[in-house]
């Protein structure tokens, strides 16, 4: 056990100390946050920006219409205290006030100004001029605020009291949108699809990166002949186990750091979005229970063991990096062909394809967590998936350890599949 620990410790510390690990750990969350924040930010441009508050309202109605309108424009804001500045002007002074307001916009102190007068109250016209005049969202917001204010004024004029007025005009409509494509509903909500995609991508990336890390590590030990020294001190199975666990722990550390920092970044996204000039987008992070979190990590770990043990076997059977890349191509094909199914599974997480793929150990470590992210998975399917994956891991480890201990001592030409099959049959 002490020796296994020594191997795990070396694999872990040497990798965690590397610059590469620090860089990846730091940039990972930024990348994943970007994946989630950028689409949300793009989506937010269809909503009114804070520009609509940063306006001057030139009120030439002399009825206080401007004040009520300002409140209506600002009523949606989550940032209190920000609403258009109302300037009451006489109709004769309007030209002068407009040129003043224009200069303010030119000096970028204001986004624009809005002119309301008797014709506005009559429901005929209003004018807006500003830097954001082309923003459909901003203009729609201002327009609907004007309509609402006109309506409220008219209702007041026919004698409705304030309380009734509020009751009638208060319509806090939360309008959510969902896209329908030729394949049906485009997932069960943007947040969970993005989340599922992020999970799938993360697992795919980690398995490829850490699988190849293990492969290079094994290859280094073989080409430098360190393997022989180590094998004279510990059984090959211990060496293989130590490697897989050590590198697996590195991967797990990185995943946990990634998930934690991404989570924090997304929690802090409101201020970030505000800085970007967008109001908070209304989507909540999917609720991840502790159990689901543990299952995610379990799938990662098992998937990692499955692939990395095979990668280790490949690393032990070849003699150079270029040979290794070639020899690892079947593994790469297995992983990439799984990744190809990420999108179809996201779109139809309960379909036959998704259910079958989440039972096969080759694909289940990536597909099942995705399904878990976007839909409920029956306990029985979950248990079957885990069961098959555990069996798959045991088979991969058995196969790998046999190739590993023979391959390590074979130098010279790259073995054929037939030779490798024979190695498996060697007792030791």
């Amino acid at each position, binding site marked *: 056990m002490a020796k296994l620990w020594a191997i795990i410790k070396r694999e872990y510390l040497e990798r965690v100390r590397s610059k590469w690990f620090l860089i990846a750990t730091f940039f990972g969350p930024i990348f994943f946050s970007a994946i989630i924040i950028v689409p949300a930010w793009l989506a937010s441009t269809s909503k009114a920006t804070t520009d609509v508050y940063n306006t001057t309202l030139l009120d030439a109605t002399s009825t206080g219409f401007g004040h009520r309108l300002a409140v209506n424009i600002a009523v949606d804001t989550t940032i209190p205290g920000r609403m258009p500045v109302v300037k009451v002007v006489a109709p004769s002074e309007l030209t002068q006030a407009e040129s003043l307001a224009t200069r303010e916009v030119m000096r970028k102190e204001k986004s624009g100004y809005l002119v309301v007068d008797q014709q506005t109250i009559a429901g005929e016209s209003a004018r807006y001029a500003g830097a954001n005049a082309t923003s459909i969202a901003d203009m729609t917001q201002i327009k609907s605020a004007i309509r609402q204010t006109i309506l409220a004024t008219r209702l007041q004029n026919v004698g409705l009291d304030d309380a009734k007025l509020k009751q009638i005009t208060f319509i806090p409509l939360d309008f959510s949108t969902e896209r329908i494509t030729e394949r049906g509903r485009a997932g069960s909500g943007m947040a969970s699809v993005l989340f599922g995609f992020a999970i799938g991508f993360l697992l795919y990336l980690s398995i490829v990166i850490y699988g190849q890390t293990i492969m290079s590590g094994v290859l280094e030990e073989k080409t*430098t002949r360190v393997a022989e020294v180590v094998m004279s001190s510990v059984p090959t199975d211990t060496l293989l186990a130590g490697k897989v666990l050590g590198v697996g722990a590195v991967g797990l550390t990185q995943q946990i750091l990634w998930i934690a920092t991404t989570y924090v970044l997304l929690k802090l996204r409101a201020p970030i979005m505000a800085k970007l000039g967008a109001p908070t987008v209304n989507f909540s992070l999917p609720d991840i229970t502790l159990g689901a979190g543990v299952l995610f990590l379990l799938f990662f770990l098992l998937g990692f063991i499955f692939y990395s043990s095979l990668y280790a076997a490949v690393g032990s059977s070849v003699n150079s990096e270029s040979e290794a890349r070639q020899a690892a191509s079947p593994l790469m094909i297995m992983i990439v062909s799984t990744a190809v199914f990420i999108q179809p599974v996201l779109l139809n997480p309960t379909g036959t394809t998704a259910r079958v793929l989440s039972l096969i150990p080759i694909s289940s470590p990536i597909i099942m967590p995705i399904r878990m992210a976007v839909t409920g998975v029956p306990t029985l399917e979950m248990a079957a998936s885990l069961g098959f994956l555990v069996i798959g891991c045991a088979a991969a480890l058995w196969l790998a350890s046999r190739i590993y201990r023979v391959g390590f001592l074979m130098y010279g030409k790259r073995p054929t599949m037939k030779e490798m099959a024979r190695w498996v049959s060697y007792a030791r």
Partner: protein
Amino acid sequence: MTEYAIDIVNVTKRYADHTAVRDLTLRVPKGSVYGLLGPNGAGKTTTIRMILNIIAPDSGKIHIFGRPSNDPRITERLGYLPEERGLYRKMQVRRVLKFLAELKGVRGKDADHRIDEWLVRLSLKTPEKDWGLSKIDELSRGMQQKVQFIGTLLHDPDLVILDEPFSGLDPINSQALKDTVVDLKHRGKTVIFSTHLMDNAERLCDSVCIIARGEKVLDGTVTSVKEEHGQRNIALALEGDGISGVAAILRDHSLVKRADDSNRFFEIEMAPGADPQALLRRIVESGAAVQRFEMIQPSLHQIFLQKVGATGVEEGMTGHG
């Protein structure tokens, strides 16, 4: 308690297309320096790997200090220097050594202390520079060999196994290695090394075993091997001219079985039943100026050539040693 450090009985190891080691029996006495001699592809490395339990024999038994070679307690008493050397290139020297020590059950402060001692001893740590803090690939080849050597001996093993230890060593490290082997012997340790450099073996070893094509050709103490395998050798040294006349005499197979010609020095193996005096007479009569004519024990090199010959080398098996 057994008197043997290594006791190999009837061991055979087969690979798919050939037998690497065939029915090998050999015993290495405790506290001795033992040479495993043979051409490339003779089965030396396979034998060493079986001793180290890196691979298991197909049949036969191997005992180390009286215990089966797969006894986990044994590995901590073994130190191994593989034929081709290398270490984790990107790792700090000190951390590599600590790792190797931990694999052999030496931990913590004890390991640090020993590493310091060795680094100083092999001048890898001087008041000016501590190479222990450098990465392996920042070291020169000679220094890397020293580090590997420290890794082999750090846990103070009772049995040290060196596979072709002299290959690739510069003269200084080579001398340091010889000194260390002698020192190990004085401290009661057993050293076994494989080599095809007979001179080193002859000077260092108490006992030797020559193997070829996976089979033992002969073994025993260096003295007994020499005694058993011919007192009929003659060292002949000549002066001046007349060498060409001697060459003709040496080709006479009624007198000479074979002669190793080093231009002015010959090591001659007499033909069975031939009289050395008759040979001396013929040489003198040929007019050559004899500087030395001496009945000698054959060198290990001669015995090796005689027993193994050119046919002992099989091509293309270096992978299985």
